[in-house]
């Protein structure tokens, strides 16, 4: 069963435009949600996590338990935001600790 869904494989926006990367999840209990980012030629790294309720590089994400969503948003996209973004979920189920990543969204910010 797909635990984390990122419906957009590719997303292009113009510099200065708002951007929203969608993430929906399916999980019973109380999962932890994360956004990871992979810039070109760099390692995958944490962007933000819902438990911290923080804003990193202008990005925010709100956990909506009713809609089971954790969309990533930024009001004004910058060229340096071009990267691959992964939504991720961690939780504890009857098989132990599990970690699920979405299929990723490749964001391109057009100058």
């Amino acid at each position, binding site marked *: 069963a797909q635990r984390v869904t990122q419906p957009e494989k590719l997303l292009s926006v113009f510099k200065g435009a708002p951007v929203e990367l969608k993430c929906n999840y399916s999980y019973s209990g109380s999962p932890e949600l*994360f956004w990871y980012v992979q810039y070109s030629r760099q390692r995958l790294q944490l962007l933000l996590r819902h438990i911290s309720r923080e804003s990193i590089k202008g990005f925010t994400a709100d956990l909506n338990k009713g809609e089971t969503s954790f969309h990533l948003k930024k009001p004004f996209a910058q060229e340096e935001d071009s990267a691959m973004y992964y939504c991720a979920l961690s939780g504890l189920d009857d098989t*132990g600790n*599990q*970690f699920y*990543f979405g299929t990723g969204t490749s964001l391109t910010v057009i100058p």
Partner: protein
Amino acid sequence: DAGITQSPRHKVTETGTPVTLRCHQTENHRYMYWYRQDPGHGLRLIHYSYGVKDTDKGEVSDGYSVSRSKTEDFLLTLESATSSQTSVYFCAISGRPSTDTQYFGPGTRLTVL
């Protein structure tokens, strides 16, 4: 970058041969993970370890085994490699399993011919 290295970084092998990938950390983190990254699938957890000699299966563990004899090393073994195991393999570490950030290694690109 957190102190995580993977070796080898690239490997080409033939179907049916055994392959071992190594992940080494200098952060003394308790948890270590192996993922594979494939187009259209994102990252999928293969196995993880929650301490020396303590491991558990992930989402796609069939065809893979792991071992952790020391805190700093986590080995992933493909006993008999198949073409479907051609992928990029990432190791990650964390202090705690659910809430902590996972720090990723640089990846190993494995091609099985």
